[in-house]
């Protein structure tokens, strides 16, 4: 019962906090731009307004385009329910497996690209292709680092992995640290922030696939994308920074875990926001150079694992 409560709390937390996180990111950006900026609650206002608007779809768009935003948001919610965020154990063990999470993360990307092609716009199609390219380039690094950690901890269950990292039992340690760094980089790319927001590049592709959505669909998609950023950041926090998460599920421990988790997440998101505003968008042809670096780090951690340091 308490597990289920934890899962629900996690979902509510991430979904409700996502617009706030996005609003704070916007505020940070405004400050770095030497602008006043909008309120940190602006994203809530935007979503509320979009929700009231009517929905328009391009002529050629069909079921895929209609189904994509709910699937996108829904998948993120499911992932959020399964991660060991405030306790070290997975609230829903079925969803706590590394492989499940990785597949669940691939699903929205697939739908996103499919919907981009479905709407038949030329900019959206280019954006969809870029999103796939990003996936192809960054997913190997994600998978490899998680596999390294799984081998180091002896389980593919995220809860067990978190527990093992938190109690410093994961062996070999260097491999785990390097895997952590690689995973952080891969997560940053996966979050789709600058310089890696190639699929929605405003100046290049006019927001890419997003351009064809409106009203509630756009609201769901925007919310889904903010939740995705939080989920990806949480995944990193859960697996590589599980320190402070409740090891036993007592109400007090869970409350402390919750507070610590929010603090860690805020730190990660702020760091990402600062990086985002200090760089230019990468030319999509050169995307591979960056992801190769990340993959190289991941491979290095695997080597360390094999030789056991």
């Amino acid at each position: 019962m308490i597990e289920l409560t934890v899962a629900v709390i996690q979902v509510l937390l991430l979904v409700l906090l996502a617009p706030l996180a996005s609003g704070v990111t916007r505020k940070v950006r405004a400050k770095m731009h030497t602008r006043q900026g909008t309120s940190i609650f602006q994203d809530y206002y935007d979503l509320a307004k979009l929700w009231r608007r009517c929905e328009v779809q391009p002529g050629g768009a069909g079921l895929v385009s209609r189904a994509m935003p709910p699937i996108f948001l829904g998948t993120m919610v499911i992932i959020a329910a399964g991660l060991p965020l405030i306790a070290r154990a997975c609230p829903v063990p079925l969803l706590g497996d590394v492989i499940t999470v990785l597949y669940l993360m691939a699903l929205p990307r697939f739908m996103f690209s499919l919907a981009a092609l479905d709407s038949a716009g030329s900019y959206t199609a280019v954006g969809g292709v870029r999103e796939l390219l990003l996936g192809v380039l960054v997913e190997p690094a994600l998978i490899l680092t998680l596999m390294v950690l799984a081998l180091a901890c002896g389980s593919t269950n995220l809860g067990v992995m978190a527990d093992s990292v938190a109690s410093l039992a994961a062996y070999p340690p260097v491999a785990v640290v390097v895997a952590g760094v690689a995973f952080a980089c891969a997560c940053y790319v996966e979050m789709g922030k600058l310089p890696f927001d190639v699929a929605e590049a405003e100046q290049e592709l006019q927001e890419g696939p997003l351009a064809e959505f409106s009203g509630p669909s756009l609201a769901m998609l925007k919310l889904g994308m903010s939740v995705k950023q939080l989920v990806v950041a949480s995944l990193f926090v859960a697996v590589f920074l599980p320190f402070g998460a409740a090891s036993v599920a007592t109400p007090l421990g869970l409350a402390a875990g919750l507070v610590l988790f929010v603090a860690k997440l805020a730190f990660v998101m702020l760091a990402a926001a600062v990086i985002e505003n200090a760089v230019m968008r990468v030319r999509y042809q050169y995307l591979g150079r960056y992801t190769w670096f990340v993959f190289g780090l991941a491979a290095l951690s695997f080597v360390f694992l094999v030789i056991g340091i």
Partner: protein
Amino acid sequence: MTRKEAAKVRPGQTHVEAVRDTFPGAVLDVARQAEDQVTITIPADMLPDVVEFLYYGRDGWLPNMVGNDERPLNGRYALYYLLSMEGADPSFVTVRAEVDPSTREFPSVTPRVPACVWSEREVRDMFGLAPVGLPDERRLVLPDDWPDDLYPLRKDSMDYRRRPAPATDVENYSFLYEGDVEETTEVPMGPLHITSDEPGHFRLFVEGEEIVDADYRLFYVHRGMEKVAESRLSYDAVTFLADRICGICGCAHSVAYAESVERAQGIEVPLRAQYIRTILLEVERLHSHLLNLGLVCHYCGFDTGFQHFFRVREKAMDLAELLTGARKTYGLNLIGGVRRDILEDQKMATVRLVRELRGDVEALVDMLLSTANFESRTAGIGRLDPKAARDFSPVGPVARGCGFARDVRFNHPFDGYAHLEGFGVRTHDGCDVQSRTLVRIEEFMDSLSMIEQLLDGAPAGPVLTEGWTYAPHKFALGYTEAPRGEDMHWAMAGDNQKCYRWRAKAATYSNWPVLRHMFRGNTVADAAIIVGSIDPCYSCTDRVTVVDVNKRTETVLTKSQLESYCRRRTHSPLKGRGDA
């Protein structure tokens, strides 16, 4: 040639002699409008030969060609090919030819000198004169729904206050594809695009993400200024209209217009007024270059840099406010001088602001150049082949980024520029976006020093000449180096205190035709930054017709923009980066 002999020969004379020697009997008449401006009249069928000879044979560049309906004066139409001679004997040589009003045909120069293409298309639209052999016979300026037989700039065309009924309801402009890859996808960019605040319709022919070719259409925002100037304003009010050609480089236009009238009428502008004009032109360059540097950041997705450049740009606007009373350098020029002097305390404040700007911008530029990905986003992007540049006469940082030392301030020193010391044309030869950006950065720093030197050197004295006599039907060229390149104004006075004909050529007009060459071989992702690197000014280019933006045209375009433009052609695996 000794110095003494050189002093006797007036600028441009050697070119006239060369034309006489090469084409015996071609020169029907030689007239001099100003010290550095000479006009030769030749028979229309000699046009391609003579213009080509001057252009390629004698280091000429073609800013513009002006059509004129001179039927009330001499019963014929006239064409003026303006050539800026920038090699030996720098001067302006205008080649004038008359066109028979019954046939209304003349041989097109475009096949020989591609730089004429837009001017000849425009003369076709505006006067109904047919350039025989013109490769591209689409409309340039007039909208699709304009009637076929109405030529706005003819003296006997419809009254400018009336508007013809639309001739068609459908958009019938065809975009031309010149690449050699057979299978391409057409990507529309515009008429309204997120990165440009003015309308322009680009069609990118792409293979995957690579642009094989591009075509574009502009002139969505015609304001009919030339017609208004001819029919409504007196010639001395046109300086204020010229200000409004551009929201950024207005002063460059009004100085160019004022000087074209002053040169034609032989008015001596006081030295102090010349200095003040020069200072204002440089202030304009400051804020325009800062704008473009900010936009380069924006196009690369680096909005932090964009916002910081715009923050610093406010100081340049303050400078304008200090010197002119308005945040823009508007409303200062009169025929014969300027309206307002620079006082001692304004001078001190200007010097202080210039110093602050120098520090701020140096820091920002360091930041920009060291930002991750700046190099990879700009180096080698939007390459303009110097050969294409030579053929099409681009101006400003576009030409200077290709290694051509084209800058009216130094090629044909005018006003205060003639008295400056220690400055030269800034060029880079990377031919890419990066070179153009670096040229702008260096020019910005030069402008700051120029303002300081001009403020120090400005002699005391009056700022306006009055009491001169007005002579009708005289014409001359006025030119300035606007931030985006040379502005060239050609004005002929009428016998009613109005302009008989005023032709304003904005810098960007010369830069659009080469854009196609810059697009080729790049990706869709770089399209915006390439357009941005010519620092385009749509409304400056779109200044001519009598029709203004009407609702109908806008609706049709928006609707068609929403349609799917994806179109597949037949198959070929060939990768192409077609050359002209």
